[in-house]
């Protein structure tokens, strides 16, 4: 699994757009980029996954440049309830499905 680097923490205000960037310089050809969200005392929750260009769902957008060495999770108009830890995972889960979580980015949304 490729090593990822993301900011340890970020602050934002309600209504703002938040962009969290993840670096993954050693991403392999078969690797996907996936983001999870974790609220305190809860299990991680899958947010979005992509391979290249842009992916959008009802929760977030994921921007992936052509070289795929980084990716940006974009949360539009955050609210207080978006305060959570966001994890960037890169790799091919392969036959066993093992997920390797890093420290993630703790997003604090303020009123």
């Amino acid at each position, binding site marked *: 699994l490729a090593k990822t680097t993301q900011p340890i923490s970020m602050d934002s205000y309600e209504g703002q757009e938040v962009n969290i960037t993840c670096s993954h310089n050693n991403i392999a050809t078969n690797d*996907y980029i*996936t983001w999870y969200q*974790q609220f305190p*005392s*809860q*299990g*991680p*929750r*899958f947010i979005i*996954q992509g391979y290249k260009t842009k992916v959008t769902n009802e929760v977030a957008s994921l921007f992936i440049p052509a070289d795929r060495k980084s990716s940006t999770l974009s949360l539009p108009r955050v609210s207080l309830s978006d305060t959570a830890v966001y*994890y960037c*995972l890169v*790799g*091919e*889960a*392969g*036959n*066993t*499905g*093992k*997920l*390797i*979580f*890093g*420290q*993630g980015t703790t997003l604090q949304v303020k009123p």
Partner: protein
Amino acid sequence: EPEVTQTPSHQVTQMGQEVILRCVPISNHLYFYWYRQILGQKVEFLVSFYNNEISEKSEIFDDQFSVERPDGSNFTLKIRSTKLEDSAMYFCASSESPVGYEQYFGPGTRLTVT
């Protein structure tokens, strides 16, 4: 929306005792996992399970740990002789496929070993 459930939500046990943590994965999922998260630390993979066999286990998953799917719906994690350092949140997860990363996590069981 289907969800993974776990029981109990909180388990307190004494050092050396055996505990069994229970999980009910999403019904049509075939791949099952256990992770743990020590307070303030990152989520750590313990084991993956498919077709009644362990697919992969981490270094944490030593001989005191075991997993079982005793029937068509439950998936259990047993810790034979608990240690203080086993205190953590234990998450069960399931997925339709191991390929890709979309796993569904349960709410967790908080294990406190005293």
